[in-house]
């Protein structure tokens, strides 16, 4: 017995069991995804700024090369940045028609762009200006203590 697909569907539609979702629902999903991508990207830039700024402030760039920087590198921030980019890329591919492009290309291009923008911000002097504000100063201290941990203390002890 062959199933009459058309009849069964039309009956369901006529009975009101199946209804069309309104256009505004899809607009909400699309704009919501775009909004989230922008928020995640901006947050990732802020974190990338600290990712460069914290080691810079602790003198990592005054020392000798990449080894010095690596010892100050806030790895937790890097993990957070990568997670944010992964979520953004997933949202872009799922809701914004980004599936035509390679996942790895979008991911690495975004990672490089965000780190570069973060580095530009870190060297622009904006953090030093912000630190004059007591609230921002507290936030920066919190970042340093949480993301670089006891390294700063060890460094201070070393130069005492």
């Amino acid at each position, binding site marked *: 017995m062959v199933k009459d697909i058309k009849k069964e569907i039309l009956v*369901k539609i006529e009975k009101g069991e199946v209804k069309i979702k309104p256009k505004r629902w899809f607009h909400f999903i699309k704009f919501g995804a775009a909004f989230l991508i922008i928020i995640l990207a901006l947050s990732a830039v802020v974190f990338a700024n600290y990712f460069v700024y914290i080691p810079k402030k602790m003198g990592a760039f005054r020392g000798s090369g990449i080894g010095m920087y690596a010892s100050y590198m806030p790895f937790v921030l890097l993990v957070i940045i990568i997670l944010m980019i992964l979520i953004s890329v997933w949202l872009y591919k799922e809701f914004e028609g980004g599936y035509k492009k390679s996942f790895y290309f979008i991911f690495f291009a975004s990672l490089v762009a965000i780190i570069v923008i973060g580095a530009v911000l870190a060297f622009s002097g904006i953090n030093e200006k912000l630190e004059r504000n007591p609230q921002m100063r507290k936030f920066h201290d919190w970042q340093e203590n949480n993301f670089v941990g006891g390294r700063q203390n060890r460094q201070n002890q070393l130069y005492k």
Partner: protein
Amino acid sequence: MDVKNFTDENLAVFIQDNNGKGFEELIDRFEKPLLRYAFRLSGDMDMSEDIVQESFIAAYKNINSFDSKRKFSSWIYRITHNFAVNNIKKHSKIVPFENDQIKDERNRISEKGLEMDLEKDREMLENNLNLLAVKYKEIIVLRYFEDKSYDEISDICHIPINTVGVRISRGLKILKDKIGSKNG
């Protein structure tokens, strides 16, 4: 207004603007191709009918998400593709069917008036499709049985165009190797 003369995209827009009116014509146009596609992926006619029915219901509910700048057939194939892949995963314990079963299913398909006038090599390909993993099978079915372009396959499977090419050549190679080893 005679919707029969509309292009697929214009028909979809008409359905959007008229709260579902004209959907019947859309079923007439896509029921057979989608059934054929679902059957080639799943190898089970009952499952294919369920997949197509679910696909049309999902298409009706989500018709307002269709963007008229895109190809409608890719959009509706995408929906069927998702349902088919999910169903195949759910029923992955299904034992590959025997040739007699294929014949029975074909008879059922021809009952529905579907044309399966395949060339000889296509028949060989079809009989051995189950040797392939779903990710290769779906692409080969779309390319060689549904005559979709790389761009359309990319839209249906949501993968980059380059990946479409890679999967086609890899899938065909796997198939050749498997058929070769099967025939000794």
